[in-house]
């Protein structure tokens, strides 16, 4: 693995040519159908989901959508979901449970959207509900951080049996900029904060939060989409059957313990 700093990796994932889930879905899943809406309020374009086939096996795919240009980003709100996005994700996750399909979550968000409407419709409740329900959802769940894993807005799709991170992806409780401005009253110290917060794929594996790092082509995923897809495909091909063969009771017990054991304290 290349020896880049957290900040250098953040520059790679901010590259305007970095592939998004719109590039990965058609390349990985055959006959994908997108399903819309949360059945309560509306259809949030910051999260997309549906059913497709991965090497002959039906899977549910639910993903945060980063745009590849300004138009797409306006439509998908730069990948920042509203509560209805999280509720759509939960609806589709329960559909997956009903039909015994594994779920693949693709995480790529700066965070849940912060705005009036999001508060009025219960952003906190929507995220909390996902954490609660996914913790015991009776089907295998894989979460993959494609680029940015922004706090609770990412975790709402990150309660899983296995968490994988693309090599340059980051996952953090707060944006380095936010941390720098709160802790040091100086947003320009975001590079230092990025380092201090331990947000890289490698950090997350060593902290016991992520299980796997999926290698990127030299210089980043945008340099060779085909190779990136191949690495993702290899990972899914290994991981889906492994999780699917586990008896559900074991799977759920392991999922509970995966999160239960995270934390360091003395007593």
């Amino acid at each position: 693995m290349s020896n880049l700093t957290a900040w250098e990796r953040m520059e790679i994932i901010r590259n305007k040519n970095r592939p998004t889930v719109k590039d990965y879905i058609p390349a990985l899943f055959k006959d994908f159908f997108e399903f819309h809406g949360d059945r309560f309020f509306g259809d949030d374009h910051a999260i997309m989901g549906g059913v497709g086939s991965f090497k002959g096996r039906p899977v549910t795919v639910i993903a945060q959508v980063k745009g590849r240009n300004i138009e797409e980003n306006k439509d998908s709100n730069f990948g920042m979901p509203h509560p209805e996005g999280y509720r759509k994700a939960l609806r589709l996750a329960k559909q997956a449970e009903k039909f015994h399909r594994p779920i693949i979550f693709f995480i790529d968000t700066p965070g849940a959207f912060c705005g009036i409407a999001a508060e009025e419709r219960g952003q906190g409740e929507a995220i909390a509900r996902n954490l609660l329900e996914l913790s015991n959802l009776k089907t295998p769940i894989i979460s993959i951080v494609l680029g940015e894993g922004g706090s609770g807005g990412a975790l709402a799709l990150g309660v899983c049996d296995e968490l994988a991170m693309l090599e340059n992806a980051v996952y953090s409780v707060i944006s380095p900029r936010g941390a720098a401005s709160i802790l040091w009253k100086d947003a320009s110290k975001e590079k230092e904060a990025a380092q201090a917060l331990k947000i890289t794929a490698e950090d997350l594996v060593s902290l016991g939060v992520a299980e796997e790092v999926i290698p990127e082509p030299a210089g980043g995923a945008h340099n060779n989409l085909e190779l990136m897809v191949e690495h993702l495909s290899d990972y899914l091909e290994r991981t889906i059957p492994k999780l699917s063969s586990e008896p559900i009771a074991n799977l759920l017990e392991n999922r509970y313990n995966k999160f239960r054991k995270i934390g360091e304290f003395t007593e």
Partner: protein
Amino acid sequence: MLEDLFKTVRSRFDVDLKSDRKNKVSIPADLLFKCPRCGNVMFMEDFNGANKVCSACNYHARLTARERLQMTIDKDSFVEYDKDMMSKNPIGFADYEEKMEKLRQKTGLKDAVITGECTIKTKPCVIVVMDSTFMMASMGSVVGEKIARAFERAIEKKLPVIAFTASGGARMQEGILSLMQMAKTSAAVKRHSDAGLLYITVMTDPTTGGVTASFASLGDIIIAEPKVLIGFAGRRVIEGTIKQRLPDDFQSAEFLLEHGFVDMIVERKNMRRTLSKLLRHHGYPGNTPDL
């Protein structure tokens, strides 16, 4: 008249309180309470006598966990869980240990939550009380672990859980580990719920961020104290996004009630009785009649 009062007080004590620049007078912090919601000023003695509720706007001010327990549970009924648990510095964050040590000295707390078993009007329950005087009750490893254990012990003992929530959000000095406490606590709530047991949340000032987006929002019954702040995103963050000032009642308990995220608003003076009656409705009759 108030101005005069301030002048008198100032001449007697001559204490400067930085946060009160707006009124150009200084309030000795230990003698007067100034309501952060409406600006009303009360003598500390009256304020304390009124359970720390503002006499003008009914804002229910912050309590320490010890004050909350004393006000809520039966005398001498509390058995504390995990009282010596302390955070490490898992990602080696600069100054974190020193900061915590100072707070431990100052507050007498080991971290931002107290958990344990108690009775409320003789009805047994597991109780979780967060304390905003300790790092704004941010949730790190200790808060997450103590809460998860509280739910697990409640499952073993078939007890209801009552959680008084208050938090500024995740403990960022613990990095990603603090975020994962949201998943950990929510999973423990799920197990407790699946066991058919009652979970009541009481949201107090302020309940925000990762705590709102996890166990605080997952009660079977969600109560809030009047006028308290409840929300996911910080007010300044939202104002920065929308480039305009938000209305005063935005993210208040009343705002959440209006939008359907809180079952009821209960005044502090009625809290103990309300909790007792709700416990009775859910199969915990206790030994004494509810009056």
